[in-house]
């Protein structure tokens, strides 16, 4: 009984977090075209809102949220991450989003306290 509850609260749930992040990205840059002057504001908004929503979940985790925005220009972009942590409790998820002029990639890493 108690064990079940604590297991749910202390492991990283990928689906829930993916949903949260998708909503944040949609509401920030959903219908916009790439605009150099607005990028900083969009990015701050995405990472801060994501972090706020994640901490609202109330789980005993430290979070790192990374956001990459790339103009669709034909350039190649490659990213990789490697992590040294506790496999049973920690986890990550990456949300890739795009529209006609922007690629956006948001990664969330959650580490159990």
């Amino acid at each position, binding site marked *: 009984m108690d064990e079940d509850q604590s297991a749910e609260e202390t492991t990283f749930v990928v689906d829930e977090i993916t949903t949260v992040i998708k909503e944040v990205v949609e509401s920030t840059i959903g219908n916009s075209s790439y605009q150099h002057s607005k990028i900083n504001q969009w990015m*701050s908004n995405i990472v801060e809102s994501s972090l706020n929503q994640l901490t609202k979940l109330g789980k005993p985790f430290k979070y790192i949220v*990374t956001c990459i925005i790339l103009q669709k220009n034909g350039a190649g972009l490659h990213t990789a991450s490697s992590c040294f942590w506790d496999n049973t409790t920690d986890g990550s998820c990456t949300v890739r989003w795009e529209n006609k002029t922007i690629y956006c990639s948001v990664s969330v890493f959650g580490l159990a306290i």
Partner: protein
Amino acid sequence: MEEYHSGDEVSFNPDEASNVVKECIEGIIGGVDYSQNKVNQWTASIVEHSLTQLVKQGKPFKYIVNCAVMQKSGAGLHTANSCYWDTTTDGSCTVRWENRTMYCVVSVFAVAIAL
């Protein structure tokens, strides 16, 4: 056990991590031009080597190493990070590197383990 803590709280040293990462990058893509079929191999090597070197330091941290490699073609690239952690012990560092044909950005996040 006791000697590991030695009464001092261990905090992340970004300069040291930065040097470790720079050497890894140089060693892997130091003198080469952007090549689409090699990029995946490069990014994987960079993160793995950096992680191995960081872990060798033997400090009580969990690490996340993130690497982005981009071809120089005039496109705009922006990245941002935000972190919810213990600011006294945890930290991050970001290394930006470039050569004639590509940009490379590596971020290291270190989160203290409560022993």
